[in-house]
């Protein structure tokens, strides 16, 4: 009982230290060894280019230049007065990539398929080496003469004489039909 009480206390101490780290507002450290790296603040809404999220939590550009700000003011009016370039500029303020750009094929499949074939080929070489350096000698039942004796015995026993093995042998002539 005394042991249990001590270890429980130690665990609680560990948990409390970890708990403080979790509840602080600092974000995720990118993996690195030593230097100070930029941490994205995960506690505010983030932008993402995702096919299944058409409206991300915040616009892409949140620090607008003066031209962008005036464009945003113009957006508050009737949209017919916006030129095509202005509409595109407004889109690019809100979003990073269009759906067409997000869905663009990457050609990754070529790398994947190439990797698959490469490793299958390598495995083939390994199996070939095994065939010559690892496999034990064949059992004698796989020799041609043993197989011939085996076939003769099967025919003598009339194995499957109706539709199968012996049905294909012509017993009068002593040859396959």
């Amino acid at each position: 009982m005394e042991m249990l009480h001590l270890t429980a206390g130690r665990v609680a101490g560990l948990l409390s230290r970890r708990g403080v780290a979790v509840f602080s507002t600092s974000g995720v450290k990118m993996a690195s060894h030593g230097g100070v790296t930029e941490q994205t603040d995960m506690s505010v809404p983030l932008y993402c280019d995702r096919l299944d999220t058409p409206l991300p939590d915040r616009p892409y550009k949140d620090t607008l230049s003066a031209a962008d700000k005036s464009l945003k003011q113009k957006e508050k009016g009737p949209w017919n007065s916006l030129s095509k370039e202005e509409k595109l500029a407004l889109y690019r303020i809100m979003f990073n990539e269009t759906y067409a750009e997000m869905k663009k094929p990457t050609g990754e499949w070529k790398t994947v398929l190439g990797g698959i074939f490469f490793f299958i080929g390598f495995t083939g070489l390994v199996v070939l080496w095994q065939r010559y350096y690892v496999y034990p000698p064949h059992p004698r039942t796989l020799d041609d003469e043993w197989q011939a004796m085996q076939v003769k015995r099967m025919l003598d026993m009339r194995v499957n004489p109706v539709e199968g093995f012996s049905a294909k042998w012509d017993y009068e002539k002593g040859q396959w039909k």
Partner: protein
Amino acid sequence: MSLPKPAMRGLLAKRLRFHLPIAFGLSIIAAVAFKFTVTEPRKQAYADFYKHYDSMKEFSAMREAGVFESVRPTGK
């Protein structure tokens, strides 16, 4: 904005009305095809085999070939 209201009910029933006759039809066709390509020829093959089957002759042939342990070939 005035789209027709989509069908809200009876979706499974509609699907079954379409697919069940096809399913039954294909299954019956498969069974009939199997019967006439496999079972009938097989029955005929067995009938033909046993029509002129002489079991004693076959037994003697097998005995001479030496496959039995209870009877030796007639030479010994």
